[in-house]
Each structure stands twice: as C-alpha cells, then as structure tokens.
C-alpha cells in the first residue's frame, strides 16, 4: 500500500488523539471479518450525521438519541433515527414518560444488539457532528462497547468548539457561550422552540452548515 493511499485512508482520523487513532486501527483489524467491517472504513462521501443525546441523571439511565443525516446543502430531516433506550421499560416509568413526551419518541427500546446495530448501520462510516459531541457520544459509546464490543469509530466534529473558534476569529472579545440556543441566535438561525433530541440534532446540523459556509468565506 503506497504512502499516499495510506494517508488518504487515515485522513479523517488525524483529528483524534494518538490513542484513539491506535484504538481505531486495532478495532478495524479485529472486526475485519465481521459484518461491521465497513463501519471502520474511512468515509469518502460528503454526508455527515448530526447526533444529539439526552441521558437522565437518575439510575437506571434512560437515554434518548437522535441522528439526522446532512449533506453540504441540506439537512435531511426526513432521514432521522430516533429512539429512547432503557434496559427495561418497567424501570423508572416517570423518567421514561418524561423522555417519551419531551422527545416525541416511539415506544422505548432496550439497548440490545439489534437496536444498536441498527443505529450503527444508520450512521455508517459517516463523520459525526454535534453540539458538545463528547458528552453525547460518551454514554452511547459505553452502550456500544458493552453490547457490540466496540465504540463508534467515526470521525467527530464538535460544533461547540467550531463555533467558539469561529467566534473568536470574528469577535475576539466575546466569550463563546456553551449553550446551543445562544449559538443559534448568534448565527441568526431559527431558535429552538421545543427541546427534543431531534430538534437539537437538526439545529446543530444547521449550525454546522452555517459555520462551514462562514469558514469557506473567511478562509
């Protein structure tokens, strides 16, 4: 394998730390013969997936997840994956009901292999974007490791950081807020009217597109 091709292959991974890089490379080798192998291949397309996740503070954890596909011109709100995950629906019915109503998800699903591989299939090997993505991904990765044995290998873009960087560039004296709503107002995007996971994912996708344009302009 020539050096350039190797470079291409790993281009998307350069953003992470050396540790994650090694982790992913070893995952890729380990899963090379499984049906999940393609998830570890580098992505060459233009699409990305915006993620949002809400986890209840109480135990046992109830988690609502939304993933929305976006391309450079559009947010494909018609291609959305959304679910509330809980180990057993008998547990914590109040939290569950709250999640259910707030995020307008369907009946809760247990985070078993079937459900998680469905999500993995949905995301594929496309890069992930999200507002404070680490917080979103961490609990999900925990589930993935427990059930499937690997964490999500995708490249990740944290929009909060992107926003902070772009804002500092344009207005060095303004402190970047850590709230998504503030960022939306800052970039003149429609505000969040309903705090569901889907709308959070959509909003962060829009913000991502907006910032991409901003970067293209100022670059």
């Amino acid at each position, binding site marked *: 394998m020539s050096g350039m091709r190797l470079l291409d292959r790993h281009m998307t991974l350069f953003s992470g730390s050396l540790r994650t890089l090694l982790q992913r490379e070893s995952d890729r080798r380990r899963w090379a013969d499984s049906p999940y192998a393609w998830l570890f291949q580098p992505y060459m397309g233009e699409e990305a997936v915006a993620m949002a996740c809400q986890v209840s503070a109480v135990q046992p954890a109830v988690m609502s997840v939304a993933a929305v596909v976006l391309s450079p011109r559009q*947010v494909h709100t*018609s291609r959305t994956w959304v679910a509330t995950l809980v180990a057993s629906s008998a547990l914590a019915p109040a939290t569950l009901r709250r999640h259910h109503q707030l995020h307008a998800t369907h009946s809760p699903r247990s985070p078993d292999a079937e459900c998680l591989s469905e999500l993995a299939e949905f995301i594929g090997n496309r890069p992930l974007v999200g507002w404070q993505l680490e917080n979103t991904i961490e609990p999900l990765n925990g589930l993935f490791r427990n059930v499937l044995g690997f964490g999500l290998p995708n490249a990740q873009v944290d929009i909060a950081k992107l926003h902070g960087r772009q804002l500092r560039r344009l207005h060095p004296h303004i402190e970047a807020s850590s709230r998504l709503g503030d960022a939306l107002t800052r970039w003149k995007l*429609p505000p969040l*009217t*309903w705090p569901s996971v889907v*709308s*959070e994912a959509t909003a962060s*996708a829009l913000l991502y597109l907006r910032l991409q*344009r901003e970067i293209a302009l100022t670059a």
Partner: protein
Amino acid sequence: MVEVDLSQLPFTLMDEAGRDHVRRGMDLAYFDRDEIILEMGQPGESVFLIHKGEVAELDPTLPAASARIGHYTAGDLFGAISILNGKSRYRFQAEQECLCYVMPKALFTQLCRHYPPFEQFFKQSLSHKARLLTEKRAEGGVTMAGFMLAKVNECMREPLLIDASKSIHDAVRQLHDSHADSLLVATAGALGMVTKTDLLNGLVLGNCTQATPVEALANVSLVTVAPEQYLFEALILMTRHKVARVVVMEGESVKGVVELMDVLSFFSSRSYVVSLQVEQASSLEALAAASQRTPELVNALMAQGVKLRFAMDLLAALNGRIMSKAWSFTVPEQYHTQSCLMVMGSEGRGEQILKTDQDNGLILADDCQWPTVAEEMNTLTETLIQLGYPPCPGNIMVSNPEWVGTVSQWKNNITKWVNARDGDSLMKLAILLDSHGVAGNPALLDQVREALFERCSHDELLLSYFARAALRFSTPLTLFGSLKKPQHGIDIKKGGIFPIVHGVRTMALERRINATSTLDRLDALAADGRLDRRFADDLGEALALFTELRLRQQLQELDNVNPKRTNRVVVQELSSLERDLLREALRIVKDFKQRLSHRYHLEYS
C-alpha cells in the same frame, strides 16, 4: 427547533395523517445570497417552502431590469408548478440567505395522488384561487355569510293566495287576519298581486265597492325570483323594477313572497338602506343625501367580502336609479318617451363603483320637437354634479351639443367615425358601444346600437384598428416588484383593466353582443363560442381582481384629506397570495393580448 408551519394553504387541504407525512418527509436546505435554487428549464425535483429569507423569480431571457417577475418570502411555496410541468419556467434565486423546507418530488406526487384537493390547489385556475382568497377573508371575522350567502328561501314569506272572484271585503279581512300587506290573486291564466295600497286606492279613488272582485285591482306583471337565488339579487331586482315585493317561483308553482322590508331588516345594517332612500327621495336634496352615501355602502359591501360582480350590479342599479330620478326632476314629462338618456364608459358597462366622471349622452326621436333641450340638458348636468358625479374632462356630457342628437344624427355620426378611423373617432365609437340607457325611451338607443353593429361588425379593417388600442399599454408583469420607485406602484388600469375591457368590447362588437358589462359580454362570448368558457371565466376573475385592487386603493384615498385618484397598486403592500393572484391575472392578460393580436392581425402594427 424549526417546526414546519402546516396551518396554512395548501396543507390545510390534507388530513392530519397527510400533514404528519409532510412533517416527516421534509428536509431543510440552506441557500446563500444570490445562489440559484432552481434554474430555468431544470426539471423540478422538489417543492420549496420558505422558512426564512427571500427568493426572487426571474426570467433570464429578459433584460436584467425587467427580469424579475415574482417575489417570495417566508411562508411562500414554490417549485410545485415546476414538478407538475416537468421543468421550471423561470429561475429561482435567493435574494438573501434562505432557509427552506424541501419536499422531495416523490413525496409531492404521492401527496397529490392521495389528496386531490391538494393537487387541485396547484393545478387550479385563477378563479379557484380567488375563491379561496375570498373564503379566507370571510373567515377573518366579517359576517359575509349574513349578507352575501343568504338565499331567497331564507327570507321569504308564505304566499297568501286569494281566489280572483273574492271581493275586496274578503281580501281586506284575509290581510288583516294574517298581518300581511299583499295577496296573490289566482286569476284564470296568470298570477296577480294586490297590496293594501291597491285596495285603498281602489276603494277611495277608484269606483270600487267592498263587493267588487279583487281581480279588478290585481297587478299581473310580477317580478319573480327562484328560491335558490341570492337575496342580494332580489334586492337588485326590486331596485331595478321599482317594486317592493318579488314573487318566489319554482318552475310554475308559487313558493313565497319576498318583501323589501323583510330584505332590509334581514340585512339590517343602515348601509343597505341607501337604495330605499334613493327610492323615497322626493327632492333633489334628499336624492343628493342618498347619493352621498354610496361610498359608505361600497365600503360595507367590500368589508363583508361581497363578490365584486354583485356589488357592481347593485351599484350600477343604484346609479341608474339616481340618474333616472335626477332626470325625472329636471326633464318635463312629455319628452320622456321621445328621448333616451344614456350613460357611457364605465358607467355604461356598470363597472363604475365609486362615482367617476359623468359620461352621458342624449338620443332624441327623429320627430321630436324640443326647443329648450340645450337649456334643460345643462340643468341636468349641473344636477348630476350636485349629486356627486364630477364633470367629464373630455366634455362627454349632455350639456355638450355634440353628444345630443336625433337617431339619424347619431347614425350619421357613426358613419363619419367609421370612415375617419382615427384615434378620436375610435374612442367615440368605443364610448358609444358601452352606452346603456338609464332614463327615457331605451328603444331609441337600440336603434342606434343596431346601426352601429350593422356598420361595424363585418368591417375587418375597422375591427383591426379598433382592437389595436388594447395593446397600447404594456403588461406591467415585468415591472413587478422591481420598480425604480416602488412606492409609485403599478398602473392597474392601463396594465390590466383596459386591455381586458377593450379586447372584450372589440369581440362584442364583432359578434353583435348587446350586453354592455364586460362580465356579461364574456358570458355571451363564451355562449357564442368565440371564447372558451374556461378562458372567459379566467378573464372575468382577473378583471374582478384588478377592479377590487383598484377599488381598495380608491377607498383608501377617499379617506385621505386631498382626494387624488390614482390607479396605482403598490405590490409590496399586498399579501403573498394576492401577489400570486396578481401575477397570475397579469399573465392571463398577456395571453389575451396575444389572442387579440392573432385574431385581429395586429402583429405588424
């Protein structure tokens, strides 16, 4: 976050499941300033619903200054027609940063299949859209239903029948018992009517006794309506025929009686009493007072969303009655059968809603001896000015001897004008063609009109010259939204009303159609086969739209301190649906002009 707003047309034409489908199927797209969203000739792949930002619709084949033909803002929908037509007619370009919901073609076509009304919304002709607009306006709280939608059968009384051979005594007894003031008399062949006044006059002034049969007093020429006609039309009939009752007939059988008082109390708003005031006016002052109130009536009718055609009919009938009253106050009675007062121009077409200039003329019988005609006509003009009809700047008034003449003089004039064929003559012919008799003997006007048709309807050359004027002003489609000084607006009269009115007038001349109102002419042309019904309806709706926009403008100006009439409509002040309608209407005008130039060979002129 960005919840798509589906509470407006056309999404209200679907059920909740359909809207849910839309909500799930919509994507969001971002467009930069000046980015082309949909290129001309490009196949339509999606429907766009603007959430934020502005989009311009451009015709790139035109020079830049006039390329803009449409403007869409938040909440507007575009791209649907491109899908239905297969490709986009124009270029859609973002004016500002835009956020649009995007509905893929597959979903759109699926929705069209499932919800025929939804599909109709996009395919429908202008008249449907206009109806939706009226309905929307009616929902805005005004009580249109009360006035416009009331049918005759909601306001009629049971018919009280009396046998023709019964005596006056019996009739009075029956009237008293049933608290009514009219009776229908069943005579041998036809129906007649007697009122309390008839009975009283018969007893006191006539030579009747209480035993005389009612048949002797019955009035057999009845004005009838059908039960499903609008109450409004009954009111028009009463005004026109100067009666206070109409009989409701269904086929051959009597269903009831509608009395003027009932109609008025049904409407029970003071504004509608104007027609009553006109009838009751016994002096010029009273007539002037009633005449002053017509703008108020127009305002009330418009606020209630009355269809313009009916409003125009009512106003034309009212104006006619006012003129005729003024005529009867000034002209001695012996001349009434020997002369005919005609109104011309917009008044003659019955399309004058607010009082504009008086355009009128007088036709005298050939054997008429009337030495003081000039004097009395001057008085009449003065009277009309008092009544609120401003003098005509072109001096087309009865006070001008040129517009007073005997039947043969008029015929000579027509011949002269037809031969001259210059601008002035053609204008006079057009004015005369729209004339409508309001007082005196209308048979005289019919003779003149017959001569006019005789002389003109086969003269292809004249028709061609005549039709040319319709193309004189360009359709302001291109000025749309991108005027140099937008506050000046577009001239709706030159750009929209005149081409339709004049084009239809030309066709009516060719086909010898007697009706003078443009809408009636359109009906007649459609019945004649000269125009297809759909196109005629579209033209009618377009005309109604222009007239309405102009009227609204004029009513606004009426409230201002210095009344200066303009025909300009400022596009920016219209709602998006109205803008859409206006654009569509102007397209129809453009199409009509093309047909005219094809039919009358105006291509090379």
